[in-house]
């Protein structure tokens, strides 16, 4: 194995014996053996086996903070595109604090089509009916800025350990950056083209070790 690279597993590749371990994301069990479902980086601990996928669509999970675009206004809520195969619903009660008389008020004054919001996934039903909420400390409407989409599984690499990577980009470029778990990144600031470049680099080379140094070098060089 090359030192610069992380080991990669392919679909159907044997990971380890189950031996009472918890089955995590992107793995499946057959006769006590655990196999990978996707191309990704394996994570095997004493208690859990999982694989971080290197590609794929976003599958909503309760508690994820995501960036969504309003695609439809209903009588008592909004439909939100969260960059996933499933459309989420934002109920009126989860978006507005005050009492709203829906028979008199046009709720598009709160959120209208094409507006971008930062929200939290409240509920995912078994048949993938998804609700989001704005009752969250960080939730807000995002005004201005640009949106970059990356592979959702690479979001942890963009954030880095304890936010190291994202803070590095924020400090070096003086941009306001918000990362949604669904792979949508919102950037606002003067130097946003550099921030976008850094993020795209992370997406392209997310599986190598020592990425933070590489990004730091890239951002310092261009000054």
């Amino acid at each position, binding site marked *: 194995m090359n030192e*610069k*690279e992380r080991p*990669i597993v*392919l*679909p*159907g*590749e044997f990971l380890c014996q189950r031996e009472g371990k918890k089955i995590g994301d*992107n793995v*499946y069990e057959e006769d006590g053996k655990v*196999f990978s*479902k*996707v*191309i990704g980086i394996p994570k095997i601990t004493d208690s859990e086996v999982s694989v971080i*996928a*290197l*590609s*794929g*669509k976003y*599958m909503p999970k309760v508690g994820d903070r995501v960036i969504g675009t309003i695609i439809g206004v209903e009588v008592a809520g909004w439909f939100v595109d969260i960059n996933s*195969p*499933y*459309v989420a619903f934002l109920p009126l009660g989860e978006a507005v604090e005050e009492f709203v008389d829906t028979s008199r008020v046009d709720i598009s004054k709160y959120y209208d089509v094409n507006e971008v919001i930062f929200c939290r996934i409240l509920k995912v039903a078994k*048949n*993938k009916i998804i609700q989001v909420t704005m009752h969250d400390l960080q939730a807000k409407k995002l005004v201005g800025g640009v949106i970059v989409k990356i*592979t959702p*599984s690479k979001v942890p690499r963009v954030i880095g350990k304890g936010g190291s990577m994202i803070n590095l980009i924020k400090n070096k470029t003086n941009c306001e950056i918000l990362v949604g778990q669904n792979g949508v990144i919102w950037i606002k600031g003067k130097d946003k083209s550099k921030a976008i470049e850094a993020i795209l680099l992370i997406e392209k*080379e997310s*599986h*190598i070790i020592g990425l933070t140094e590489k990004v730091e070098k890239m951002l310092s060089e261009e000054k």
Partner: protein
Amino acid sequence: MKRGEVKLLAEGKRIDGRKPEEMRNVEIKVDVISRSDGSAEVAFGRTRVLASVYGPRTLYPKYLQEHETGILRCRYSMAPFSVDERKSPAPDRRSIELSKVIRLALEPAIFLEDFPKTVVDVYLEVIEADGSTRVTGINASSLALALAGIPMRDLVCACSVGKIDNTLILDLNGKEDNYSEVDMAFAMMPGKGKITLLQMDGLVTKEELKKLIEMAKSACEKIYEMQKNALREKYKVSE
């Protein structure tokens, strides 16, 4: 020309100079279509197939949605210039049948129940046809599905086997395909040892059939290694 009129085997060599159990040159390219979620191009000799995968994405019209599982759609189509005489680009009986056969060969490998109400689309375009297009298509789509991040049990590998002049042969080309006594398409998940497609034309004895399956299995193992290498190559970082 009728079957058997062309001399397909002379002095132990086939018309393209191969030995009976020799495969054609295999070429694999991954991520050839940037706007797709996953794509691959596989060539077996002069047969060349392009596969692209889109999804999982919401399925419309809504009445086609399955509540418990996602669905897989395949479209096999031959480019008008892929064969000697121009082929009409419209889907014909053969294309529709092959689309279904390819879908059935891929379905057992995919965890469709992981994404209910959605669809995964696989589009196969035969750029050049010289025999064994359906198995080349299965190889290409299996790679494209893996690259798109679709959860799979294993990669699906496929190859064709047949019989000419009472000799069992591997990986038929266009001429052999047309005039062979037996022609069998075969797909399997080599890691699991499970066969997902077995189609045959012609007459064979029980022993011959067993031998054909053995031949196809060992060829699939080789293709499996090539597929894995191609996928690993993509994630190698050039320093």
